[in-house]
């Protein structure tokens, strides 16, 4: 074996190793899915159990540990962009004061037998869990980027407003497998509630931009 062949062989093995990076669970992925699915009480309401179902985006993201090849990512982004719906009156900017409240609310939507939320409990965007927004709120998370001065930096052109709305409605339209939930797609927030959060982000009077 000459040097060139050795080099070629070595590189081929290295590339193949990368391309074939094993999906989580490896050959036990199917068993794992079944094991997971059979972990729940039979008397769970069927509405609860629907929360375990995966659309193509969820399945693919898991398979690639949230880092899909660009081609596949682009396909998912197109699919997700197609799901975005707008308020009937077409207005994408709501009331920033309502948006401020929704950004802070982290409760709502818990199910189960141990500690479920009472019916009708307000569901918020829980934005502060992952993002810095208004300076005065110091208890913010860092999973997402800081959005402090979002409007001050980017302005409040129609383009920016639409981007903010679309991103909150379906984050995967822009970055497949991002950590950010798809608030509109899952009806976690209504289109109207999303417009309030958009206002909180872009309104010059909002504490996100003022302080």
């Amino acid at each position, binding site marked *: 074996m000459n040097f060139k062949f050795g080099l070629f062989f070595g590189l081929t093995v290295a590339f193949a190793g990368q391309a074939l990076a094993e999906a*989580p669970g490896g050959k036990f992925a199917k068993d794992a899915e079944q094991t997971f699915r059979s972990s729940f009480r039979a008397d*769970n309401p069927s509405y609860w159990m629907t*929360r375990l179902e995966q659309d193509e985006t*969820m399945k693919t993201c898991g398979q690639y540990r949230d880092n899909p090849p660009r081609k596949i990512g682009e396909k998912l982004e197109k699919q997700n962009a197609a799901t975005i719906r707008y308020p009937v009156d077409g207005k994408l900017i709501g009331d920033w004061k309502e948006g401020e409240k929704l950004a802070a609310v982290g409760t709502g939507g818990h199910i189960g037998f*141990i500690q479920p939320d009472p019916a009708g409990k307000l569901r918020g965007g829980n934005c502060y869990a992952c993002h810095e927004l208004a300076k005065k709120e110091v208890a913010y*998370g*860092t*999973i997402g980027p800081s959005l402090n001065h979002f409007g001050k930096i980017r302005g409040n052109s129609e383009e920016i407003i639409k981007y903010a709305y679309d991103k909150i409605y379906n984050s995967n339209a822009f970055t497949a497998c991002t*950590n*950010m939930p798809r608030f509109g797609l899952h009806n976690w927030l209504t289109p109207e509630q999303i417009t309030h959060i958009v206002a909180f982000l872009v309104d010059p009077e909002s504490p996100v931009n003022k302080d």
Partner: protein
Amino acid sequence: MIRRLMKTLVGAAVLAAFAGGVAAQDSKVADEIAKYREALADGNPADLFEVKGEGLWTEKRGPKNASLEQCDLGQGPGKLEGAYAALPRYFKDTGKVMDVESRLVHCMVTLQGFTQAEVTKQWYSKPGKDSDIEALVTYIGAKSNGMKINVPATHPEEAKMAKMGEYIFYRRSGPQDFSCSICHGQEGKRIRLQELGNLTTKDGAGFAMKTWPSYRVSQGTVWTMQRRLIDCMRQARWPEPNYLADSIIALETFLQKTATGTVMETPGIKR
């Protein structure tokens, strides 16, 4: 022991005082926690659970009027040293990979004659209703304090469980598109003020796993790993897996395997 217990009682009083402030001002939690971690270094309220657990371990109970002293947690009958740190593992007699809790329940059923339903009815405590399991697991856990987590998952069934745990760790679903990995797959992140460990690395998984079971200040009781993981799923807005479900044991195997080599510091104390 009495002196240690006194310290614990004083600690519990200090803790109660702090806990009131915590509810009022969420944002100061991180600072306060750091303070009482220090203040309670040798007065963790979990010590009370440990003492109670020791009593439950040695007391003759159940229809068979037997103690748990012959329970085999993987190191041989009655051998508790290092048992917690080496779980989950495969057990020949049941043909299953079991964690500390499923094995403990198995012993309570086979040695003491309880039914599984009786034993697991109170698998976590509620106000005014203590959980024997919390106390026993704290006691068993403490017997691994200072020892290295050791779950290489070399048995084929253990290896399979670890891989299944990995699958579940990355599995996304629910109205928030969550998986474990969303919060626990990267370095140096926070949710609100709570620091998040990267559970895919030895350091991150080790830091998380070495302190369980842990006294949780905000809950006023000890949480076992089953409780911790089932509650993560509740927070993800999924339905709750059953207590002792294989999916939970799979996640534990994945995490303990990743954490293997880390020295246990249990019982811990957390927010």
